[in-house]
């Protein structure tokens, strides 16, 4: 497997491979129960992105015992456990250490048929790109830290981040999907750049079709872009060509680091409409076709309109 894949894969037999991944982070919302859910949804996402089904998980905990009441940890673990139950995943153990800063996440193992593994490679000219969750969680999390986010918005993105990519993963198994990844810390363009890099192909995105939370646009206009968005931009901007008509705020939002973001699916052109229709029916209502794979310009992402 490639070094940039979402998770590690080990083939056990001709019809079974295991996928292993690990992910943990510091709190992004104040409510411990929801933080637990979000951390679990985020960790499970890598398995879904590779076309697998998560089966078992282990908790990873860093907890400041001297500063925080142990009941906070119980709520976090309950949130994680409830999310694992929702995903049909069995918690089989875990490890905790005393830490100056609270951290929580999971190590997850999933199953996949070796012929059905999805990676970031295997793009084909003419393929369409589908994104399944709106962008903007990084900006809104920054607005929460900055004390300007309303309770309503916090509630909205908390639910969004805690939403599993399971339904999307189930739906896409029925279609000719060529490649897939989940959108997290590198932002949409950062993760897309990993797909394009070395493919010999290019991508054209229609910025008007990319789902972005309207509150994220408002907060970005108030200067709430996280430092990570700029790092992502500096790292990958040589691969990206923006039409001059694309608003600078939107350009920055396409680099906004996401927490537990959606899946970016590269799918055969003829299957696209049906996939999106079914995703919307299943409740992933932000799902949208955002662009296509082209033969030229090679190794570039062009963002138009």
């Amino acid at each position, binding site marked *: 497997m490639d070094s940039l894949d979402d998770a590690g894969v080990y083939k056990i037999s001709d019809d079974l491979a295991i996928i292993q991944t690990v992910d943990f982070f510091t709190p992004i919302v104040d409510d411990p129960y929801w933080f637990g859910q979000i951390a679990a949804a985020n960790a499970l996402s890598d398995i879904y992105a590779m076309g697998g089904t998560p089966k078992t998980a282990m908790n990873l905990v860093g907890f400041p015992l001297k500063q925080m009441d142990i009941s906070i940890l119980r709520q976090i673990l309950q949130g994680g456990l409830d999310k694992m139950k929702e995903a049909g995943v069995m918690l089989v153990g875990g490890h905790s250490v005393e830490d100056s800063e609270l951290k929580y996440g999971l190590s997850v193992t999933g199953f996949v048929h070796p012929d059905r593994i999805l990676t970031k490679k295997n793009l084909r000219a003419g393929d369409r790109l589908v994104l399944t969750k709106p962008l903007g969680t990084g900006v809104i999390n920054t607005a929460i830290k*900055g*004390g300007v986010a309303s*309770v309503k918005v916090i509630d909205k993105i908390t639910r969004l981040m805690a939403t599993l990519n399971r339904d999307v993963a189930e739906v896409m198994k029925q279609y000719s999907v060529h490649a897939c990844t989940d959108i997290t810390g590198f932002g949409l363009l950062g993760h897309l750049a990993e797909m394009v890099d070395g493919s010999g192909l290019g991508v054209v995105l229609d910025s008007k079709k990319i789902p972005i939370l309207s509150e994220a646009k408002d907060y970005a206009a108030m*200067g709430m872009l996280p430092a990570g968005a700029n790092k992502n931009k500096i790292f990958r901007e040589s691969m990206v060509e923006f039409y001059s008509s694309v608003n600078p705020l939107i350009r920055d939002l396409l680099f906004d680091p996401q927490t537990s973001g959606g899946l970016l699916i590269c799918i055969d052109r003829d299957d696209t409409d049906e996939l999106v229709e079914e995703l919307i029916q299943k409740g992933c209502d932000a799902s949208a076709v955002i662009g296509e794979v082209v033969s030229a310009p090679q190794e570039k992402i062009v963002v138009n309109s």
Partner: protein
Amino acid sequence: MKEIDARGLSCPAPVVQTRIAIEEGYLKAIRVVVDNEAAQQNVKRFLESQGFDVALEKVDDHYSVTGQCDKVTAKQPSEASEAEARQTKIMIMIATDRIGYGDDELGLKLMVSFIRTLKEMGPDLWRLVFVNNGVNLAIQSSEVLVDLKELEDSGLQILVCGTCLTHFHLLEQKRVGETTNMLDIVTAMQLADKVINI
């Protein structure tokens, strides 16, 4: 001119410091120094969103943003808010779905009657805040939902405690008012001329 040195701080801290300075001082001019271009862009966007004309400068590793604001900003007291200020501001905090102790049925009846009579306070009634069990009055099954909606339509601000809704798993069922937090409630208490606790 107010000067802020926000070097060494990562986003959103430079914007937060700028916001606090503006909110405290009704500033006409401000200069913020940061140590990277992204923070400079963020501060620029924030000042522009607040009605400032902005100039950028870079000297060595110092990125500065200078904002000038000649217009009367929204932060300064307008005529409307002066008129509002002359009125008595009554805040009512309701922490239960029934009035008093003793008979629960009677308590519920009294609460319904209380909410329906509130409009008699007229424009002096400024904010209605529901916390703890009181949030039950703002949900789908509430007997006074229609009355509360009428009060809201007439301009009364109704706040419903988000922590309480979450605690009772009622977030989805709230039908009136804005979901709020303790900071909003405490701020409202400070601004009110009279706080009535039920």
